[in-house]
């Protein structure tokens, strides 16, 4: 046999096999009790006037990957109230950048965060009539085609959840890892159905299940912020770090808990504490967060133990961080 023929004999079957290649091994396994695309049903906006009422109005659940390249997450609907409606979601847990400045470092953030327990959820919302996904099957968007006067087609996203930033002054911004994300839908049409998408942008590396707290309330999100005594958005919703080893089946019931009192039973121990310390450190120069991390290191000196299923570390590995002044 000539060498070229031999090479072809090896390459051709490989190429043919490539046609049926799915690449699924690249994606995390789906969790049978946490569907990759969830339909949470129709929610009623809550009326809240105190911080305590906010705490009890939170819906708690979990999201998990689809196991394929398809984007995962959840959707729910609500009926327009004729006024403003706030959508607020807080994915687990907290995230901070470690302070590694050579001069004038921030001691309260000098210990690293555990980046393996955090995830990210992006919100989009709009009139259900524009939503092109299949609830519970695939996530979609609110995109329609607009034809300009020259007949050219322009995709327009009818997403009414407008989040702005310096980089995106016209909207299109999102909060980052573990940070709460929220938006107000002003002047919703009375009785008209709205769809909200909670897109799972990233799941925690440690268990591939992202706990979250969700608020749907009457009025502007600024009202909620004003009612928050901690002055830090992260602490409006507490306890969203839900233990992934619970036996809740999200196919039957979309939420695992209603209100902070209920979620405490299924949250990771200490998760609300770390949120509180983070918020205190964020809004003042308090060093409680650093002290917590030092204590945690003392309690769990072998940091690889943090990957054990029944152990949760909220702080990272100080040995695996840049030296001060590193660039």
């Amino acid at each position, binding site marked *: 046999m000539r060498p070229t023929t031999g090479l072809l004999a090896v390459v051709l079957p490989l190429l043919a096999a490539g046609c049926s290649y799915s690449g699924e091994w690249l994606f995390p396994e789906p969790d049978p009790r946490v569907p990759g695309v969830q339909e949470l049903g129709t929610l009623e906006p809550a009326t809240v006037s105190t911080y305590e009422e906010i705490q009890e109005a939170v819906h708690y659940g979990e999201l998990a990957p689809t196991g394929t390249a398809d984007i995962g997450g959840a959707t729910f609907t609500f009926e327009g109230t004729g006024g403003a409606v706030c959508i607020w979601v807080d994915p687990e847990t907290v995230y901070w950048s470690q302070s590694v400045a050579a001069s004038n470092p921030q001691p309260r953030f000098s210990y690293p965060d555990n980046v393996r327990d955090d995830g990210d959820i992006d919100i989009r919302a709009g009139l259900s009539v524009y939503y092109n996904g299949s609830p519970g099957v695939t996530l979609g968007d609110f995109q329609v085609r607009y034809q300009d006067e*020259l007949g*050219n087609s322009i995709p327009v996203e*009818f997403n*009414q959840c407008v989040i702005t930033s310096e980089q995106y002054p*016209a909207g299109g911004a999102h909060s980052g890892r573990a940070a709460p994300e929220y938006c107000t839908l002003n002047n919703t049409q009375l009785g008209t159905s709205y769809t909200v998408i909670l897109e799972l942008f990233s799941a925690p590396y440690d268990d591939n299940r992202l706990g979250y707290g969700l608020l749907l309330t009457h009025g502007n999100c600024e009202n909620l912020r004003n009612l928050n005594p901690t002055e830090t958005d992260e602490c409006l919703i507490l306890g969203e770090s839900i233990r992934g080893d619970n036996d809740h089946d999200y196919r039957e019931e979309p939420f695992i808990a209603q209100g902070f009192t209920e979620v405490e039973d299924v949250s990771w121990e200490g998760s609300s504490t770390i949120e509180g310390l983070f918020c205190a450190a964020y809004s003042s120069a308090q060093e409680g967060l650093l002290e917590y991390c030092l204590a945690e290191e003392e309690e769990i000196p072998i940091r690889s133990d943090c990957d054990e299923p029944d152990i949760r570390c909220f702080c990272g590995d100080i040995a695996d961080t840049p030296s001060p002044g590193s660039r």
Partner: protein
Amino acid sequence: MRRSLSLALLAPLALSACGFNEGLIIEDMKIRILVPREAATRVMPNGEEVTDVRLIGPVYFGFYADVRDDIFGYGHPSIGPVFNNQVGGDAYPYGGSSLGDIRYPCLEFLVCKVVSGRYVDFDEMVEWFGEYYEDPIVDSRDNEVTTGEYIRQTCFERMRVTGDDEIRLTVYEDRNEDGKLDHLDLDFVENADGDFEAEAMVWQQEFVEGFQLWGWMDSPGQVTGRFNTCNSAEGFLDQEYDNNFRGGRPHRDLLNFPSRYIRNTDWVASEGKEFQNWDDEVVLVLDHEVNQ
């Protein structure tokens, strides 16, 4: 021999790919902009009526599907659907540019008040604000700046540069090739009719037959000379010595949402100029003063 034969076959194929025509018309499009004399004429805070190129603010222009005057009461590109009261209609430009850039002006006092291509030298800035606005330029310690050279040297120091061509706020190239750097080398030059004309380029613009050129001029504020298309929260960060300010830069959505920024005393083109070919000779005339 076999390798040489393969190369002989492959080389012409590879070369022929260089001549592949994608069918896209992407060109550097040259346009002319005309600003009427009235737009560069104003009674200044010192009471004096002046006609001066320094009253011509940044001019923003773009290519749009259509221009109409029944949306905002002045010529404005058609806008897409307004589906949310938090977001106005997007004009969906095909592209565009500006003539006169808002840049870091080296002194906090001058942030959002200075546009490139309007000053022959830095002395003209000192004169403009001190004499006509009766609001002398001050440095970071509130000391009055009396010479343009002070601003120039501040720029050199802050920006770590050594020439006006790197600061790019004043005249630095002999555009008319008369051997002098003067007002004839600014962006806008007075024509025989007393109006002001400029030439501008839109680099690497995809041409769409029938699209229309439209634009507007952001006039300087009456009292301070500030431009409202400038975002003072962005731009070059100056934190040297006792400074702590941003140098300013244009807002990012000026061509998509012009109506957000157009104010009274700004000048707009009342109609769009349609292109049938990419090299059509088109003059954008900013002929309408917004006054609502």
